[in-house]
């Protein structure tokens, strides 16, 4: 891997769904880069297109009724133009994925050892026994106690945290360069979430992989990432290194989001700064900024014209707003 070619480079990715209601613009022109060895958070509310983005990168969307444009360069190769067969060889081997709900993301009728082993056998020429012993090692490395017994159990016999560990083991099975984790802790309790995030971070560091962490939780994004991209209505509306984003968010949406979350430091009954309205419908987006109807700074231009994603010179900070917080800089 050379420094010139980032691990993952997404350029102008659009993913639309053709539904009876109309065209759903789930991902609407997303571009970003991710260097190997770094963690990028994709932050956004429900329906903002995070999952679709992650799946679109993997080419995991249904064939029918999906319109996809743009390119997804993994180590310089465009996944978007690859055939299913070629893609299949990379999935699990080069790019792996961890899903939101560990309850449903594991096959309920196969033993977990076999599920981990399957990934190995799909991409590595190893014997069944070899795959089994490797999967046991993997499961142990993600912190599953009593591995030999657990490997012979079915997903429903494991707790949520355990299952997510299995998912992670599966993702790591073939030493991928990139892991996409789609809300890997949303279904878990805080204490378990903490364990899983710690595990993910540790494994990422040890294997020096790129990690794309999809989340709706500012707190999760804050603690474990190098950079955060905020999505709204299918677009990235702001992207910056983590510290910078928290220190100097430019996009009113990012700001509003931060303010609307109850903070542990505030006293009880602190009135929250709720964002009025509701997330937009992705079927018929208006011409302007998607956040304009809910934005406290919204002006006439916002409703007419969509702001481009601008980079603040000299930084890695990008945002899309006509009236950024704290003025243009």
């Amino acid at each position, binding site marked *: 891997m050379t420094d010139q070619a980032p691990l993952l480079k997404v350029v102008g990715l659009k993913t639309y769904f053709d539904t009876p209601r109309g065209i759903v613009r789930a991902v609407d022109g997303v571009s970003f880069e991710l260097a190997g060895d770094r963690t990028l958070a994709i932050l956004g509310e429900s329906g903002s297109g995070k999952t679709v983005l992650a799946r679109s990168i993997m080419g995991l969307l249904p064939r029918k009724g999906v319109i996809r444009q743009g390119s997804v360069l993994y180590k310089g190769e465009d996944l978007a133009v690859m055939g299913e067969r070629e893609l299949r060889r990379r999935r699990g081997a080069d790019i792996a994925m961890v899903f939101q709900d560990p309850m449903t993301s594991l096959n309920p009728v196969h033993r977990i050892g076999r599920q981990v082993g399957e990934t190995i056998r799909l991409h590595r020429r190893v014997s069944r026994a070899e795959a089994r012993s490797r999967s046991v090692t993997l499961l142990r490395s993600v912190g599953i106690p009593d591995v030999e017994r657990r490997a012979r159990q079915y997903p429903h016999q494991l*707790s949520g945290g355990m299952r997510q560990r299995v998912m992670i083991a599966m993702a790591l099975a073939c030493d991928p360069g990139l892991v996409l984790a789609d809300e890997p802790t949303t279904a878990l309790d*805080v*204490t378990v979430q903490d364990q899983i995030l710690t595990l993910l971070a540790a494994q990422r560091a040890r294997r020096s992989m790129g990690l794309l962490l999809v989340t*709706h939780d500012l707190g*999760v994004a804050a603690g474990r990432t190098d950079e955060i991209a905020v999505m709204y209505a299918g677009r990235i509306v702001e992207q910056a290194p983590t510290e910078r984003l928290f220190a100097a968010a430019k996009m009113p949406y990012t700001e509003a989001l931060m303010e609307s*979350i*109850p903070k542990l430091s505030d006293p009880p009954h602190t009135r929250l700064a709720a964002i009025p309205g*509701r997330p937009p419908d992705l079927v018929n987006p208006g011409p302007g900024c998607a956040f304009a109807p809910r934005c406290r700074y919204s002006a006439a231009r916002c409703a007419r014209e969509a702001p481009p994603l601008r980079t603040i010179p000299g930084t890695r900070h990008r945002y899309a707003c006509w009236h950024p917080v704290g003025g243009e800089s």
Partner: protein
Amino acid sequence: MTAGTAHLRAPGEALLRVEHLVVTFPAGRGRTVHAVSDVSFDVLPGETLGIVGESGCGKSSMGRAAVLMPPPASGSVVFEGRDLTGLRGEELRRTRRRIQMIFQDPISSLNPRRRVGDIVTEPMAIWNEGGPRERAARAREVFEAVGLDYDAVAGRRPHEFSGGQCQRISIARALVLDPKLLICDEPVSALDVSVQAQILNLLEDAKARFGLSLVFIAHDLGVVKNVSDRVAVMYLGRLCEVAPAEELYRAPAHPYTRALLDAVPVPDPAARPAGSDPALAGEFPSPLAPPSGCRFRTRCPLATGRCATEEPQLREVRPGRHVACHHA
């Protein structure tokens, strides 16, 4: 052995006083889940009691048992001075109407086949209150209180609304009967962060406007802190700590509360160094076979031999602060 009632206030003061509540469910093959084991709590008029705890620790079971849906295995539920557990049939039905409940899933708590207007006037129809005009007027009032326009929404069905709007509708429905106590079982967990704040503010407003008391169940510590006067922390069917909200968060006394607070991801990159150890190791034990003694001891950094044999009682460690831990 009891888990203590030291934290309860004088019986006369409390709007709701629940003592020694035990909730069990049959778990097949003759086994029982002890969802709630001997828990007591009370709510003063106008107070909000927050209840936090991990998934499966018995929060919902406790909330539902407090309104006898279903009745608890044992314990008493005294509401406005009357013990509900002694009541049956019609009398229970009448007394219970002053307590209402809001559920986690805003969509499935509304009948998909009925119009929103009917859903909200239904309570009055059940109690045969007023004529069509009075009902509409009252519905208009509560809809206004939750920020919806009666005329615009009454004719539509739940699936035409977003989650936040559905939650507003169910709050409106609960308010129609002019309840004294609202039990909110994770009312915002299913909502988007940006909408969550709307509902939390709305609940605060409604509380003030209708003179409500609230039992607020949630697993998000930030949310609980924001709405609560007093917070109870639950672990595996027991209370670990009860304290005024502010104090609990400032200085958690129980090791579990502390771990919980440590585990909360804080939206501040500087808050915690990446790569540090998780706040709490291990898994939530099975409620089918809870550990002996202190139920938290299997994951507790402070656990000693005593914890395995002797069950800690809720005791007052500082004025207003009650903790069930030998080491607090």
